[in-house]
C-alpha cells in the first residue's frame, strides 16, 4: 500500500525506483540536510507521521472521542438515565439559530422546536411531530441536572441544553423509555472507548511477553507458543467470545462484568501482537547491539526489555492502534447480543441492543443510526491512524 501515501518530503534519495536521475539527487531547497541526517529515530518517525494528513486527521478524531468520553457528564445535555415517560421514541429535534417574530423580523435566538403529541385512538400508540410554534430556547453552559464530574466535583453546568431544564431537548431523539439518546451516546463513548484502551493494554502485556519469549529463545518455547497462537487464531472469534462471555456469572456487579468482558476481548487479540513482536525479535536477535549487550554481561531479561523492546516500540504502537477497533467492535457485538455489558452500564453495544428488531428500527431509526455511526467512525479513525503509524514506524525503510 506504499503507493497510496505521499512520499515524505524529507527523503533525500528517490524511493520508488521510477526516477532515473543523477546518482546523488539534488537536495530540495529550503531544507537543511544535516538536520535530517543527525535527527534521531523518533524525530524521523514524527516527521513521517505528520506528513500523512489522513492519519493526522484520524488521530485528531480519535483524541476527540476520548475527550468526549472524559468529559461525558459535562458534554451530555442531561442525565443518560433520566427517563421522560411522556416522550418515548420522540424523534430528533433540529437546532435553529433564528426566531422569526410576529412582525416578520428575524432575531438571534438558538432554539429547538417542541413536540406535538398525537395518540392513535386505535392502538393508543403515541407519535410525536415537531411543533413549529413551540420554541424552546437553548444555550451554552446552561444549568441542568446536577452531576459529579469524575465522581469528585459537584457541578450542574452542561455545555449545551435548554434554558429551562424542564423543557425537552433531544437532539438525537429518545429511546423506549424516553431517555435522551445524545446523552446516552456520550456516556457510551466513555465505556466503549475505555474498553478498547484497557483491553489493548492487557493484550499488550500478554502479547509482548509471549512474543518476546518466543522470538528470543526460539526452540521449544517458540514451538509451544506458536502452536498456542495457531490454535487461538484458528478458532472463529465470535463463537469463542460468545462461549467465554456466556460463562460470566449473572450475579456479578457491572464493574466486574466490565473487566471480565475487557479481558475476554483481549484474550483473543494478543496473538497478532505476539506474532509481530516475535518476527521483529527474530530479526533483531542477531544484530550487533544485542551481541554487544550480551558480551557486556547483561542478563537475558535486561537484553529483552532494555535493549530489544525499545527498538520495536514504534511497531508495537502501530499494531496496538490497529487492535483497538477490533476490541471496540467485539464489545459492541457481545453487548448487542445481550451477553456482554448490560444495562445500567451504557456502551454503544448496549445502546444497539435497543435496535434489535425491525419494528423498533422502523419506529425509531435514530436508535440504529447514531450508535452504529459512532462505532463505524471510531473504527475508521483508528484504522487510518494505525495505517499511518505503521507506515511511519520504520523511518529507515524506503
Amino acid at each position, binding site marked *: 500500500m506504499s503507493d497510496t501515501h505521499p512520499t515524505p518530503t524529507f527523503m533525500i534519495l528517490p524511493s520508488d525506483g521510477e526516477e532515473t536521475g543523477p546518482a546523488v539527487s539534488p537536495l530540495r531547497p529550503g531544507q537543511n540536510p544535516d538536520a535530517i541526517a543527525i535527527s534521531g529515530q523518533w524525530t524521523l518517525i514524527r516527521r513521517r507521521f505528520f506528513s500523512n494528513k489522513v492519519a493526522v486527521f484520524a488521530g485528531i478524531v480519535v483524541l476527540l472521542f476520548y475527550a468526549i468520553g472524559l468529559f461525558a457528564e459535562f458534554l451530555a445535555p442531561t442525565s443518560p438515565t433520566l427517563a421522560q415517560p411522556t416522550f418515548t421514541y420522540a424523534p430528533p429535534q433540529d437546532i435553529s439559530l433564528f426566531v422569526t417574530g410576529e412582525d416578520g423580523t428575524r432575531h438571534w435566538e438558538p432554539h429547538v422546536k417542541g413536540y406535538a403529541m398525537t395518540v392513535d385512538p386505535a392502538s393508543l400508540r403515541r407519535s410525536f411531530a415537531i411543533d413549529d410554534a413551540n420554541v424552546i430556547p437553548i444555550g451554552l453552559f446552561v444549568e441542568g441536572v446536577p452531576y459529579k464530574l469524575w465522581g469528585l466535583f459537584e457541578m450542574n453546568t452542561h455545555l449545551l441544553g435548554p434554558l429551562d431544564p424542564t423543557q425537552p431537548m433531544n437532539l438525537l431523539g429518545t429511546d423506549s423509555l424516553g431517555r435522551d439518546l445524545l446523552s446516552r451516546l456520550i456516556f457510551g463513548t466513555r465505556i466503549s472507548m475505555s474498553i478498547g484502551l484497557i483491553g489493548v493494554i492487557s493484550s499488550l502485556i500478554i502479547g509482548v511477553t509471549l512474543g518476546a519469549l518466543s522470538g528470543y529463545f526460539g526452540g521449544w518455547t517458540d514451538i509451544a507458543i506458536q502452536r498456542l497462537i495457531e490454535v487461538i487464531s484458528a*478458532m*472463529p472469534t465470535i463463537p469463542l467470545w460468545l462461549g467465554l462471555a456466556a*460463562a460470566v456469572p449473572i450475579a456479578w456487579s457491572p464493574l466486574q462484568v466490565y473487566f471480565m468482558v475487557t479481558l475476554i476481548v483481549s484474550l483473543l487479540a494478543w496473538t497478532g501482537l505476539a506474532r509481530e513482536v516475535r518476527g521483529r525479535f527474530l530479526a533483531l536477535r542477531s544484530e550487533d547491539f544485542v551481541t554487544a549487550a550480551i558480551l557486556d554481561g547483561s542478563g537475558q531479561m535486561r537484553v529483552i526489555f532494555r535493549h530489544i523492546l525499545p527498538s520495536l516500540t514504534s511497531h508495537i504502537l502501530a499494531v496496538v492502534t490497529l487492535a483497538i477497533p477490533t476490541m471496540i467492535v467485539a464489545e459492541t457485538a457481545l453487548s448487542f447480543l445481550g451477553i456482554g455489558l448490560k444495562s445500567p452500564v451504557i456502551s454503544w453495544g448496549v445502546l*444497539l441492543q435497543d435496535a434489535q428488531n*425491525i419494528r423498533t428500527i422502523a419506529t425509531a431509526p435514530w436508535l440504529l443510526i447514531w450508535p452504529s455511526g459512532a462505532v463505524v467512525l471510531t473504527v475508521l479513525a483508528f484504522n487510518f491512524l494505525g495505517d499511518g503509524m505503521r507506515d511511519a514506524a520504520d523511518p529507515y525503510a524506503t
Partner: protein
Amino acid sequence: MLGYVFKRILLMIPTMIGISIISFVIIQLPPGDYLTSLLASMADSGQTVDATEIARMRANYGLDDPMVVQYWKWISGIILRGDFGYSFEWGRPVSELIWDRMGATLSISVAALLFVWAVSLPIGIYSAVKRHSIGDHIATLFGFLGLAIPNFILALTLMYVSYKYFDQSVGGLYSPEYVGADWSWGRVWDLLKHLWIPVIVIGTSGTAALIRILRANLTDELSKPYVVTARAKGLSEYEVIMRYPVRIALNPFVSAIGWVLPQLISGVTITAIVLNLPTAGPLLLRALISQDMYLAGSFILLMGVLTLIGMLVSDLLLALLDPRIRFT
C-alpha cells in the same frame, strides 16, 4: 506432494487437540455441571430425586472423575461413536441437533466465499491496473468502509433498508409459504431472494480485505521486468495483464480460504442471530444463555474444526498452484 500432504495433516493434529481442549474448557466454565442443571430443572417441574440416585448418576456420567478423564470421555465419545453428549434443554442427543445447522452454516459461508471471490477479483484487478483513477478511489473508500462496518450493524441496516424501501420481509431463509416445502424452482428463487442479504453482509469485510491485498500484490507484479518484456513483444494489454501477473497475484485468493473462512464462519454466527437464519449461530447463542453446555461446546468444536479444514484445503490448493511452497 504426497509427503507434503501427509506432513500438513500431521501438523493439524496438535491444533485440533488444542481446539477440542478450548471447547471442553468452555463446557466446564459455568459453575455447576450437567447434573446440577438437570436436577435444578427436575426440581422446577416438581420431581424429587433421592441422594443414592444422584450418586449413581454422578458415577454414571463420571462427574467426579478428574478433568483429564472427563475430557477423555467426552472427546473419545465424539471420535469413536459420534456421541456429542446430551442437550438437556432439548432433551435430545446433541448429534441430532447440530448437523442440519452446521450444514446451513457451511453452505452460507461457502456462498459468501464465492461472493467474495467474484466481487474482489474484477475490482482488485481494475484497481491495480487503473491506479489512482476515480474508480480506484471509490474501491478504496468502499474497502475502508467495508472493513469498518461490523457485520451485525450492516445486517440491521440492510434489514431496515429492504423493509423501508423494498417492502420485503427479511430474516430467515424462506418466505413462510416455502418453509418445509418440497424443492421447486419457486423455492430456489425464494431462497436466493433471502440469501443475498446474509451473503453481502458476511462477505463485505472479506471482499474489502481481498481487494486491498490483490491490488497491492498486482501492483508489485506489474512493475516487474517480465511485464515490460511482454508488453515490448507486442502482447495485447489484456494478455499482458491476465496471462502472468494476475495468475501470480491470485495466490492470496487461495490462501484467503484459510483466513477468510474463520471470519465468514464468525460472521455467519452473528449475522444469523440478527437475521434469524437457521444456522448454528442462533442455536449456539441460545444454548450458551441457557447453559446447555454440551450443545454449545459441540458447536464451538465443530466450527473450529471446520476452520481448520478450510485452512488445510487452502494450504493444499496453494501447494498445488505454487510448487515453491511445498519445499519450504
